[in-house]
């Protein structure tokens, strides 16, 4: 199992869209390395014959009928938004967007 380097933490923080200060990076790299080493134990007993469990209870086929419900109040939603214009959410320029 690989250890978690500072560079790796920086890469993962980028994936998770979290800006970290250099001090935070230093500290997190140290802490996460210890934690990862500890949790990596799971692979000791996770043999191929053991099936994975993703849900605590084995339910299947839970569906909703295709029936409309009332929409959420747009004014309430936009009132709690950082910025909005003409009924739309206003967000900073999006990279890679066709103008």
């Amino acid at each position, binding site marked *: 199992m690989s250890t978690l380097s500072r560079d790796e933490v920086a890469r993962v923080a980028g994936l998770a869209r979290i800006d970290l200060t250099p001090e*935070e990076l230093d500290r997190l790299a140290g802490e996460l390395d210890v934690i990862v080493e500890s949790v990596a134990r799971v692979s000791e007993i996770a043999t191929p014959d053991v099936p994975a469990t993703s849900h605590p209870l084995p339910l299947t086929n839970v569906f909703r009928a295709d029936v409309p419900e009332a929409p959420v109040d747009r004014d309430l939603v936009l009132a709690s938004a950082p910025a909005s214009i003409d009924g739309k959410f206003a967000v900073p320029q999006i990279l890679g967007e066709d103008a």
Partner: protein
Amino acid sequence: MSDLTRISAAALADALTKKEVSSVEATQAHLDRIADVEHAVHAFLHVSGDEALSTAADVDRRRAAGETLHALAGVPIAVKDVVVTKGLPTTAGSKILEGWVPPYDATLVEKIKAAGLPILGKTNMDEFAMGSSTEHSAYGNTHNPWDLDRIPGGSGGGSAAAVGAYEAPLAIGTDTGGSIRQPAAVTGTVGVKPTYGGVSRYGLIALASSLDQAGPVTRTVLDSALLHELIGGHDPRDSTSIDEPLPGLVAAAQLGATGDLSGVRVGVITELQGEGYQPGVLARFHESLEVLQGAGAEIVEVSCPHFTYALAAYYLILPAEASSNLAKFDGMRFGLRVVPEDNPTAERVMAATRGQGFGDEVKRRIILGTYALSAGYYDAYYGSAQKVRTLIQRDFDAAFGQADVLVSPTAPTTAFRLGEKLDDPLAMYLNDVATIPANLAGIPGMSLPSGLSDDGLPVGFQILAPAKADDRLYRVGAALEMLLETAWEGPLLLKAPELEIAR
């Protein structure tokens, strides 16, 4: 009428039904208590006095008009701030949601409102329910009413402290790895994590979707049963909700309160005692076992060998799911937006917002979870953890073949001092070692007081039952509670020091 804040929710409901008191009086009494002790406890992030009194007045009016009301109508309640409440600020203890007012109610809040329980306010918690001490709240610590220098447990320290400090007779908690049960243990209160799917998760700000469950936080087992029956049941908005009626929980509590447990097999989990557990915690645990035996229960020892891997599996599954669940907090649609200089892109605004809006523990877990899911690591980490989950379920299946309920101390220690474990995440994670297996397997668990440790602080006794057999918790819990309180000559909370009153 004695102090309305000191009686149980069941007793208050009874007095309301008999019109001996009004809901406005009861609600006002609790708002007064909040005003008196919040300076010391800080259980609430937001107190909604006006709304609570308005609900109370409405209930009083309807009662006077002879309407048929829910048994708990008019009994005030506090709600953990991870639960979405229309019109009331909801932050999940995070700066990133500061000022957000949800446009909708969680299903359990709809039920609470429909039943006419005045909502006193929103309780403090570790940010996004990540923590075991409530010290990870972005809005300051909550203090344990037994000793203000100590933690109230977490993540639901606010709900447990509010109930323990008589600020509310009932509260809602959520439990992903022990966030209801561990705070209950360290504050001398009662907390129940229902079977996964027993209470709708719709409107709970998700931490780990496959582990989260909302449940009652109260001072008595019967009160938990009453609240559990109110908030539980099938909800089509939650696809993982169980489409079956709840078992009779209040009835089970009433049956248990007779003190007879003849024929009940109680399994003691070998792996959840011994090393790492305080001697005082173990002493109270063993005394409670004797009490159960005295009530006619048969005590058996069961082994769950894979539990030693539960913590590791939990700290992969939880961060992985959380990293995805918390992706939506990006400053685009609601909550905080941090805009760096120079006309930044959305991408940079998201990263800046999340960098400044999330606290240390949240960042730690999101990065851990992102790492565990990222290319090349999935099988070793998340995939393996899901397999451990299967092994833990099998352990429980085997154990429940030998016993009707399983028991352990709820937490290895009593409340530790504020700040004591803040710099050691792994030590903090160990607090949940006894509560986590239930979440991984989806089974119900309860914590109730089993006495005071050598340090004079409360110790919790955990009862676990098979999935959908939540009624067993209430039967065994109510029996133990009745027998212990008989021995103590009253509830354990009577032994707590009186808080200094403001004013």
